[in-house]
Structure formats: structure tokens, C-alpha cells
């Protein structure tokens, strides 16, 4: 029985000015349908490169990605991406940015359905009021919400989030995390999210994939987060299991991982 999304021995080597540069090697990960996976690691460890390979924007040098028994060879609407801070086309309104994806993915549906579906997805992220605004006129948090609405509207098999809340202030980030958790709970999406934020990783994920440092980075450890859902950040603040998971990730990131030293 193969997994829903399977990353198999993926490696990538770039041809740089100073000869070949191996960014990733032997990355293997199996993700079940509906799972929320976070990828955490220091800057430059190839997290975004890995996400781009899954998205199909970059081609792996070795290995490959299999999504529901089909190999990923090019970008496609079955893997929607939300980028860190440039997810929207600036000349289109909020509505048109989502509608663009809806028209592309749901070609078979009629116009009225596509209109309703666009508004429905905007309302999932509470952005239906700002339909006519352009990206230049709304805040960073709102832009990310629209990016998420567009990704959801495509009903992708996998949602790929590349540090979606990285550029936002703490309060906005918390709001959006809660929103994302609620949507994930309701729709059961399969999510792969890159993050720098330890709390975000523990709060949202079923599993946290910790990547070692580059060059030739690979997965160092995978931490299963078996906290019951729905999760509420306030309740978890003092939860022993939560603080334990959080400490594990922190230890990994800051180099005091006893398990790894022993190995």
C-alpha cells in the first residue's frame, strides 16, 4: 500500500559557477491523506527547494515525487502553492485573483457556479468584503488569506505552504493559524507547510519534519505530534505534551539534541 504523497530519495544538484552544488540528497517522506506536515530547519537547508520539487516548479536530479500513484513532472492545479509574500498578481483584484484559479481548474462548471465558488472560498478566509480591492491596497495578512483562499478554491490534493505567515506580525499570524487549523479540520486537506516558527509547527502539525543543515541537506528527524484535535492555543500553552514537543524541536534547532548526539 503506497502513501498518498510519497517523496522518494529526492536529491537535487545545481550547476553553479563554482561547479555542481548538491542542495538536497536522499529525502524520503510518506504522507497520508489529510495529514498536516510541517518542515522546519535553518535557513538555506533546502526546505523551499523541496517544496518546489513537490510543486513541480523544480525538477529533482535524483529520485522523484509520487502523488496518488502518478509521478509529478510539472506544476499543476492538484498541488496548490501559497508563497511567502508574493502569491497574488498585483494587477488583478482580490476576487479576480481567486477567480483566475477557479476558471482554470473548474472549467467544466458554469459561470454562476464559478462565481459562487470564488465568493465561498473568499468567505472561508473572511475576505469576501474586500473582493474589489487590489493586492496593493490590502495588508500582508489579508494577501496571505487571499492566497490561501485561492489555493483552497482549486481543491488540490496537496496544499503546499511556503512560510505562509513568516512575514506577518505575531497577532495576525495567530489569527491565520487558527483559521488554517479550522479549515484543515473541516475540509481534511493534505498539507505540507514550511515554517521557521516552532510554535506554529507544533500547534498545526501531525508530524514535524526536521531538516539538517546544507549542503546536501536531508531529513534529520521526524517528530510525530499526537495532540488531540481540535487544538486551542490557549489550552495548549500549559499542556505538558505540547511543551515537550516544543522543547524537542527547539533542542533540534539549537543543537542540543541528545538523541542525535548519541546516534
Amino acid at each position: 500500500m503506497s502513501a498518498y504523497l510519497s517523496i522518494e530519495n529526492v536529491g537535487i544538484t545545481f550547476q553553479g559557477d563554482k561547479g555542481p552544488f548538491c542542495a538536497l540528497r536522499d529525502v524520503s517522506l510518506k504522507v497520508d491523506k489529510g495529514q498536516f506536515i510541517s518542515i522546519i530547519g535553518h535557513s538555506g537547508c533546502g526546505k523551499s527547494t523541496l517544496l518546489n520539487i513537490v510543486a513541480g516548479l523544480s525538477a529533482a536530479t535524483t529520485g522523484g515525487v509520487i502523488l496518488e500513484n502518478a509521478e509529478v513532472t510539472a506544476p499543476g492545479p492538484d498541488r496548490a502553492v501559497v508563497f511567502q509574500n508574493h502569491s497574488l498578481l498585483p494587477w488583478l483584484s482580490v476576487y479576480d485573483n481567486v477567480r483566475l484559479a477557479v476558471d482554470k481548474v473548474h472549467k467544466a462548471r458554469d459561470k454562476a457556479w464559478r462565481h459562487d465558488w470564488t465568493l465561498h472560498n473568499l468567505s472561508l478566509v473572511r475576505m469576501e468584503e474586500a473582493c474589489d480591492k487590489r493586492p496593493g491596497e490590502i495588508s500582508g495578512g489579508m494577501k496571505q488569506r487571499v492566497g490561501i483562499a485561492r489555493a483552497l478554491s482549486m481543491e488540490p490534493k496537496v496544499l503546499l505552504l511556503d512560510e505562509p505567515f513568516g512575514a506577518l506580525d505575531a497577532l495576525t499570524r495567530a489569527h491565520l493559524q487558527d483559521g488554517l487549523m479550522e479549515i484543515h479540520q473541516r475540509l481534511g486537506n493534505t498539507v505540507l507547510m514550511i515554517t521557521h516558527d516552532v510554535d506554529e509547527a507544533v500547534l498545526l502539525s501531525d508530524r514535524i519534519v526536521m531538516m539538517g543543515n546544507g549542503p546536501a541537506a536531508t531529513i534529520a528527524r521526524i517528530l510525530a505530534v499526537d495532540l488531540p484535535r481540535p487544538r486551542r492555543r490557549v489550552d495548549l500553552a500549559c499542556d505538558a505534551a505540547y511543551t515537550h514537543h516544543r522543547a524537542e524541536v527547539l533542542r533540534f534547532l539549537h543543537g542540543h539534541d541528545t538523541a542525535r548526539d548519541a546516534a
Partner: protein
Amino acid sequence: MDATIESTTTLAPDQVASSEDAPPRLWLGGLGAGIAWLAAALVVEFWPNFDDWAYTTELASAAGALGGGLLFASVAGRRLPGIDRLRSLAPWLVALALLLTSWEIFTAKLNLLPRPFFAPPQAFLEVYFEDWRRLGECVIRSLLLLAPGFFIGAALGFASGVALGWSRIAGYWGHPILRLIGPLPAIAWLPIAFFAFPSSWSASVFLIALASGIPVAILTWSGVAGVNSAFYDIARTLGASQRFLVLKVAVPAAMPHVFVGLFMGLASSFSVLVVAEMMGVKAGLGWYLQWAQGWAAYGNMYAALLVMAVMCSGLVTLLFKIRDRLLAWQKGLLRW
């Protein structure tokens, strides 16, 4: 969009002051401008001309009417619609009145400037009143030459710019050609154009199209080539085809550059228009200039120059209006 523009203009510091305080009864700038224009009217009418000049009284009444209108506006003040837009023009209105007065004094009144070369203001009026039919026809003929040339050039330039920016093969073949031909002034093709085309009209259209097409092509090309690759990534993750990437991403993203190209193309098409009309075409403002100079009718020449200036700047303004409408998403990034 418009609402935001409005709010920024009303927030300009000097206007905040005037709207916060009790609305001034009198528009002082308008009062000054009105007085200046009335003074100009008096000088024109009652200071005797050195020589006999027609339309002196008409000029005086026009200046007087403007002055009277400004005086009325300054008293009626805030109740007049559109007065706020006029408000900032007051210094210019004063300066123009002074300019007209001194011009009138140096030419018609004292005759200090050499005569056939410097015409007094009333000579302009004379031309507009007595030769408006021919002048109007020339404007229309010029526009009929300019419009097809500019549109053909802009369309071809745009299409080839997109092709050059997008396709590797088009870039390979097009780049050297554009490099070679681009810097050449379109006027240099004039002898070939008049030889190769059946009529002087089609030759001129070709030259205008060439002059406007090349900047459009170059700027469109650089715009398409410089599109943020993140935009393509976004579109590709939506499952975009090549066609979609060109039409929905590359072209809209390159539009700010395209408009710079259109502006430059329009400007260079004016110069080609005038030269072409001077050389071959038997109508139009360029021809009128040439004809007026030939007859030493300098008043006609200046009058035609003024018409040409108004026409060209009007077209540029129109282009900018279109741009501001189309590129509203870029507001704040546009600096010119």
C-alpha cells in the same frame, strides 16, 4: 480608486489649511489674476498701436472677458463648481497676463522687435479668425496621418516586443536587427520610403509607424523579459499553459513598460510627422509651417506652432489618462 486620489489631493497641506479655516470670502489669487487680465485688456485697447494692427479690439475684449470672469469667480468663490481646480492655477494666470502685456508692448505698441519675425498677439487672432478653415483642415490631415501610423507602429511594436521577450528564437533573430535599426532616426529612411511606397501618404505612415514602433518594441521587450519570475510560478502552479502565461501574466506585468514605450513612440512620431509633411505631403501642420515660412507669414507660422503644441500635448495627456486608468493597480509606483 478615484476616491483615494480625491482624498490624497484634499489632504495636500495648503488645502487643508483653507478648508479647515472659515472658507475665505474672496479668492485672492483669482482677484489678482482678474486684475492682471483687465490691465492687459486696457493696455491693448487704449495704448495706441505703433502701426495698424487688426483685431486689437478683439484681443482686448478677450483679455477683458477673461479678467471679468476671474473677478466674478474670485467673488462668487466657493459656490462655483470646479473652482478648487482653478485655485492652483492663479499664479500661472497672473504670469500669462504679464507675459501677454509685455509681449504686446514690445511688438504692437513700441515696435522694438524686428517686424516680420515677431508678430504681436493680435496677429494670432487674425490668423485664427481668417485662416481657421485651412488651419483646421491641416490639423485633421495631420491627425489622419498620425493616427494610422502610430496605431500600426504601436501594434506591431507591441507584438514584436512580446515575441522578442518571450521566444528564444525571436530574440535570437530580432535582437541584432533591432540593435542595428533601432538607433537610426526614422527620418533617415525618408528617401527610401518615398521611393518604395506608392504615395507620399503611405510613405509617411510607414515612417511614423517605424518611429513609434521601435521604442514600443524595445520597451515591451524589456518589460516582458523583466517580469518577476514569481508571477510565472504562481500561474504555473495554477496549471497555466504557455498562452496563458503570455496573455495573463507577461503582458499585464509588462504594461508599465509598454506605456513608457508608447509615450516615447508618440513623441518621436510627432517629429517624423512634421518632417514628412514638410518634405512630401501636401497638407497638414508641417506643410502649413513650411508654407507660412515661405510667404514670410510669421504670424501664421507662430499660430500653427501653437496649434501643434496644443495638439501634441493634448495627445500625450490623453495617453497618460488611458495609462492611469489601465494601470490603477500600479498607483504609488508610478512616478511620472
